[in-house]
């Protein structure tokens, strides 16, 4: 993938890079959930997506399932934790519209790690002895360790066609920057994709800035398909250093998720009725006030204090420097 400016709108990114039937890595964990991308996928009525993910907590997958975009989910944990249920997922599983393949959290993450590593499967300690293994023989089985003969669970590698994530910063080329963790599952889910990554970010910056501290790059630019500048792109989920979790909105959304007859009202107002994520945020301010967003402001003042320099050494200094020697070598 060439070194090019990958900035585009949310609409362009989803339209160009997500196809019906794709396997999609759904980013975030209990933070940084790609909600703006979730809404846009719903607006564009993508169909038959297969979702791979470890855990997600603000009901984003519930909305995606409710909108009829998802036919399969492979993951460890999904609900709107702030109403303690995954209502739409529950209904879709019951009706047979949704197939679900469960693993443990580190089972799912290990499957993503195997996909990232380009290996076909990987052992994992958990899952054995439970109904997870009984009911998900597609993704996991127990084999004999080829070295010792002991029993061990192995999970099949998961690789998405495309990943959707929200990040703090990204540069115009697609180098994704995070801090406040070296990674949860996004590093594996993104780099392990077959086609690449769509990133929404709070800030889009120049590559020079990212290159001043490349240790903070989570996803290297060559895996990135689209860079979308999208402030509040994880809302109502949190974004490290930018805003906290909007619990009241999760609860509000959850009341709609609970009732399949009510949910279309939410979809119409907050998703179909909003042209893009800026419109969604404007609606929020209009409806719940600027003070709603203001409550999400973080407690700041936790800045790095170490003096760091990525300096290198120039081997040109050796020109003309004679070999070191002494009497033993000379002898």
């Amino acid at each position, binding site marked *: 993938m060439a070194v090019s400016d990958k900035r585009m709108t949310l609409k362009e990114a989803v339209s160009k890079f997500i196809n019906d039937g794709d396997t999609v890595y759904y980013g975030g964990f209990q933070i940084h959930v790609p909600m703006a991308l979730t809404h846009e996928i719903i607006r564009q009525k993508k169909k038959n997506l297969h979702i791979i993910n470890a855990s997600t907590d603000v009901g984003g997958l519930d909305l995606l399932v409710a909108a009829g975009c998802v036919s399969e989910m492979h993951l460890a944990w999904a609900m709107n934790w702030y109403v303690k249920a995954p209502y739409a997922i529950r209904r879709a599983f019951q009706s047979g519209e949704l197939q679900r393949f469960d693993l443990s*959290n580190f089972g799912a993450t290990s499957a993503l790690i195997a996909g990232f590593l380009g290996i076909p499967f990987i052992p994992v300690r958990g899952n054995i002895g439970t109904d997870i293994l009984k009911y998900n023989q597609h993704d996991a089985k127990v084999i004999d360790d080829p070295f010792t003969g002991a029993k061990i669970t192995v999970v099949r590698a998961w690789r998405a066609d495309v990943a959707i994530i929200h990040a703090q910063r990204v540069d115009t080329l697609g180098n994704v920057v995070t801090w406040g963790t070296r990674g949860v599952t996004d590093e594996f889910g993104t780099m392990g994709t077959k086609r690449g990554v769509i990133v929404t970010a709070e800030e889009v910056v120049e590559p020079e800035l990212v290159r001043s501290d490349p240790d903070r790059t989570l996803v290297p630019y060559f895996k990135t398909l689209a860079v979308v500048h999208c402030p509040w792109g994880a809302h109502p989920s949190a974004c490290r250093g930018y805003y906290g979790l909007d619990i009241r909105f999760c609860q509000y959304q959850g009341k709609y998720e609970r009732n399949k007859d009510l949910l279309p009202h939410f979809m119409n107002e907050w998703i179909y009725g909003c042209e893009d994520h800026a419109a969604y945020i404007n609606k929020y301010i209009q409806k719940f006030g600027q003070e709603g967003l203001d409550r999400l402001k973080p407690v700041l003042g936790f800045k790095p204090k170490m003096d760091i320099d990525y300096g290198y050494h120039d081997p040109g200094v050796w020109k003309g420097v004679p070999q070191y020697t002494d009497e033993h070598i000379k002898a």
Partner: protein
Amino acid sequence: MSANYKLTELMVVRCAKEIADGEVVFAGVGLPLVVVGFAMVTHAPNMILFTEGGSIRATAPPGLAITVDDPALFANGDATFGMLATMAALQRGEVDVAFIGGAQIDKYGNINSTGVGDWSKPDSFTYFAGSGGANDMATSGKRVLAIMPQDPKKFVEKVDYLTTPGYLDGPGSREKLGMIGGGPSCVVSTMGVYRFDENKEMMLVEYFPGQSVEKVKANCSFDLKVAPDVKETVPPTEDELVILRNIDPTGFYLG
């Protein structure tokens, strides 16, 4: 229940007593995040806190964490290597206490957080969240500490879906499958405290103030064993309550 403390406060303080100083504690989402913070500022200053989000820390978080990758767990942390590092340490057998929640538990301490009904007949099955990290934690943690709401539908003879291994079918079951963790050590419910007997069955060892052995048994669907020396749980002290309420001054978790 005495008027000067809440049930959640009693549960948090009681759970914290299960953590010894210097131990590695892997804390799941919810009340466990409050318990570990409380333990670190009271009797366990050398506790090592792990979460699924990948935080590793020697000190209590500066703020109250809502999730296992909450920024409060990372600010002033010691290492933030990611889930990769904390789950790897778990799988290497370096976690002393796996601290989890759940929706349903059986007499062998097997836990269900996936759903109720018959999974193989989807129209009968009501999904909860799924395993999350509880399965990993309970498989490989040296011992498991679980915190659970209690009623007859939640304390059952056999869980509808076995998400998280307790002692499975009883003594020897875990060993046969090569699990490196020791299994459930203690369950703290909304009514009392349980340990496991030599048959790996749950046994009531404490009932909360205001409860009784009879009331607890009435809220359990299996034939609950009761320790011969069963006793009332010691309530939190005033000092403990002051410290705890300082961790959650607005009652976000504690009510």
